[in-house]
């Protein structure tokens, strides 16, 4: 495949190391209490790891733009499912009084 990009080995090893370090970070970060931000920090670390896997291990970086569109739309619909459902649960206790 002419345009298929063969990724050098050291890229894989580098990404692997980064993932291991980030896994350690995932655990370390639970040592400190960021209050309401605990979840956001944990998710942030997980998202960076996932992006590394998608870009390098799954060759998303070297794939045609269409692959990016498929990834983006699946994430978009996932976010719609989770956050639009949460709007119901988050806004339930909000009072209805105009003043309240």
């Amino acid at each position: 495949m002419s345009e298929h990009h063969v990724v050098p080995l050291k890229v894989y090893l580098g990404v692997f190391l980064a993932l291991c370090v980030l896994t350690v970070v995932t655990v370390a970060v639970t040592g400190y209490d960021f209050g309401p931000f605990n979840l956001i920090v944990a998710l942030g670390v997980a998202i960076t790891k996932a992006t590394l896997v998608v870009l390098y291990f799954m060759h998303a970086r070297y794939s045609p733009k269409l692959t990016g569109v498929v990834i983006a739309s699946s994430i978009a619909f996932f976010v719609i499912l989770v956050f639009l459902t949460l709007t119901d649960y988050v806004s339930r206790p909000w009072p209805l009084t105009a003043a309240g």
Partner: protein
Amino acid sequence: MSAEATYPKDHFLSGGWDLKSWLLTKDHKRIGILYLLSISAMFVLGGLYAGLIRWNLLVPDGTHMSADTYNKTFTAHGVIMVFFFLIPSIPAVLGNFLIPLMIGAKDLAFPKLNLLSWYLYMLGGGITLYALLVGGLETGWTFYTPYSTVFAQSNVEIAAVGIFVAGFSSILTGLNFIVTIHKMRAPGMTWFRMPLFVWAHYATAIIQVLGTPVIAITILLVALERIFHFGFFDPARGGDPILFQHLFWFYSHPAVYIMILPSMGVISELITCFSRKRVFGYSFIAMSSLAIAAIGFLVWAHHMFVSGMAVYSAMVFSALTYLVAIPSAIKTFNWVATLYKGSISWDTPMIYVFCFLGLFLIGGLTGLFLGNLGTDVHLTDTYFVVAHFHYIMVGGAIMGYLGAIHFWWPKITGRKYSEAWGRLSAVLIFVGFNLTFFPQFVLGYLGMPRRYHVYPDEFQVLNVLSTAGATVLGFGYLFPSFYLVYSLFRGEPAGANPWGAKGLEWTTTSPPPTENFHEVPVVTEEPYDYARAPKEAAVV
């Protein structure tokens, strides 16, 4: 039309009729016909259940059948029609058969996967029919918890597994379409030269792929909770029944767009062919399909306004529901604008187009009542909702489906059906349909709840009207099966392009050869370019 058409000697059916050539076929055209047979059987079964419902509702005191039988009847009608007829109908039959022909490909991207889809459909259908026929299912096609998980005494688990399996048939069909449309278009067939039928199926495939898995996991959770009692939706242990509704409707609302979008694609094809005119606002119709697919995923909670969900969240969903109404309006206006200054012939498919336009208008506009927060409180869970979604599904999706079957029947079978019978049955179906479902709008506004085995006396007159309409509608649906089957044996050969339509599928023989085109077509002209005479088939 070609002078006198001859029936081609070699075509995709002349290869063989034995069991193996059908059950192990990898030809998208044969798989389309396998689907045609299986979903027609499902339609007959679902229709019988509908007849039983109308039979029960003739009298207010429910003496025609027991409450439990009635509950199992309307559940079976719902499950069969939704999961086993409406969702696969146009994509699985006509999408499978026509998309490769329309974009100039030899076959779908993954033929083996396509056959697997049909087997999954049959396996899921078999399991679900077993659940419905042996013991029955009485949770309604919506499986609301905690009734379905704690209180129902019927085959919920078996039906859940059946629907789970059938769901993957829909996912794989969607996946196949997306890859085929992206990667296998003939040279010259750019995105904006593709027929709108293919655009509609591209949007439908996106919904099938991204929506269906959510109901797959939800139905699986219902089955697991019934078997292992792990209290996922059980309020006694903190589970939230409304969460089930969120997960269920996240798929089930886009599912209604899976049912209607392919019909919209069909209407775009039919209206241009029978007006002998280029479609008005091609890119607007194409983009409306994608807009419906995208916004369709944001509106699901308009089914839950009275469930006690948060008021502010309900407002968000109501606003988004109104947004999704706009693309449908754009399409309807564009279709009517296509008629302007055309050369309109009233063949059977065109009659179905007019039926579709009239009924889809009423169906779509009555959706405004149910997306509206104020009126939905009164109208939800009443016969107004039943009438609304039947106007969209039966008035829209099935009229489109019948129009498509009649329009491409010469291409699929190489035979012409009888125009006279075709037009008569279309009008009969239109009359029967309106007599059945228009009274239900009034019943709903009067407050008759849905899924009622018995009802107060003052609703009887309208129910009797509706049942009368149902008999006419049922009778009307029998006609096509007669004259279409008759045309298989006695129909005169149709030739490559009986309607003088544009589109690659009309440039090959009818029925098409196994490899669709004798040589790979090259597309040079714009879609629906009726100004130039239709190209005769290279080899007749």
